[in-house]
């Protein structure tokens, strides 16, 4: 399976094209998506932890479509990056650690979204469970970035 992906035209193009619009652009878009996705997450986590506690939770509705855009870009570019070297990533343990962290991070967004969507226009209080979730979210996203960045160094 991995070898089959490796032999596809798309994989070859990503591996061999000298164009800036091939691999370099995919990688840059992956980093941009990360900035949007993790950045918007951090901002909302900070709000849950009390930074800007005057702001009603409902004002943070914009965060979720933004996260969806960032996540969408990174799923597409992430798949492309995988297709470029499937036998490399598909057999590397640290890669699966990163995937686990990304899934865990994204999972923290689900209860946050329902909190915001169900909150009234003046609701500002955050339960202690939500604050814990915010900490988990910061840790998980930071872990995902750390794992992702270190992949370039620990996977030979």
């Amino acid at each position, binding site marked *: 399976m991995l070898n089959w992906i490796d032999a596809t035209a798309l994989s070859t193009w990503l591996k061999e094209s000298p164009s800036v619009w091939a691999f370099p652009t995919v990688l840059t878009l992956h980093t941009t998506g990360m*900035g949007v996705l993790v950045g918007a997450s951090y901002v909302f986590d900070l709000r849950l932890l009390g*930074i800007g506690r005057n702001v009603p939770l409902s004002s943070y509705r914009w965060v979720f479509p933004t996260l969806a855009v960032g996540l969408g870009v990174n799923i597409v570019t992430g798949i492309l990056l995988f297709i470029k070297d499937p036998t490399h990533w598909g057999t590397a343990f640290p890669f699966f650690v990163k995937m686990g962290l990304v899934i865990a991070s994204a999972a923290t967004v689900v209860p946050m979204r329902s909190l915001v969507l169900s909150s009234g226009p003046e609701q500002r209080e955050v339960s202690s469970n939500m604050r814990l979730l915010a900490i988990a979210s910061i840790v998980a996203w930071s872990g995902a970035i750390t794992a992702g960045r270190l992949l370039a160094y620990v996977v030979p």
Partner: protein
Amino acid sequence: MNHVPTVGSVGALGLLLLGYLRRNEHLKHVGLEVLFLIALLTLPVYVSGVAAHQEIRPIKEVSDDAIRVHQDAALIGFTVMEFAGFVAWAALWQWRRRGHAAPRIVPAATVLLVLALALMARAANLGGEIRHPEILAGGVAAPAGDPERFMTWSINQVAVYSRWAWPAAETVHFLGLSLSFGVLLAVNLRILGAMKQTPFSDVHRLLPWGMLGFGANLITGMFFFVGQPGQYSSSEPFKWKIVFLVIAGANFLYLTVFGGPWVSNGDKRFDAGLGDKAMAILSMCSWLAVLWAGRMLPFLGKAF
């Protein structure tokens, strides 16, 4: 270009001192803004200085030691200048929110500026000795010396030989990127029309978190640059990264101090004008350009 930091700092210092003398808060405010902009412009000056070093290194008559002494002095001057810029920014941020800065923060910025000015003058003086070796005591016979006593040399060694320093700094660089990008996203989206129910002052509240992310990236970025200057000094995308950083930084100052939402206590339902919206778009575009140029360093340049 090389004289911008020194000449500009004298200007900023003049404005601050005049502000004290005349008890004119407005002059102090302008002085802090100029100080921030000079700290910003010191970045390209420092970077171009290191690039010049890369070029003159093969010239035999130039003493390597004289260059190293100048580089260390320049790095110290640059660091204090950036620190002064951060403090000035913090003062301006407080000023915007409270109508005045905390009592000690403006004097602190002034003292740091004086210190930075003195250190930069020293660096400039030592820089003069590179091209005019006759003013060096001992002239050509200056001893080659032990490179370990130089700060830039040590940073270079850590960058090249430590197994963890570079990857760790890269990781922090990406975390800082995400934090500052998220804050800028929130502030600029508010200006562009999201979070309409939220007073602007409540998103302005987030700016120091953006600055925290940026500070982490300036430190780690300088580590890369000082550690491996050869990768960057002649790199085309790096040049663009610095250009867009200066634009983005100036824009960040605008986001910090602009008056629109604050006048007449009316920040509650602040509707940004066309100019402010244009600035918000410019802010996002210039930060995206910084990110783009940075990520392209290995492909359009020769960094890894």
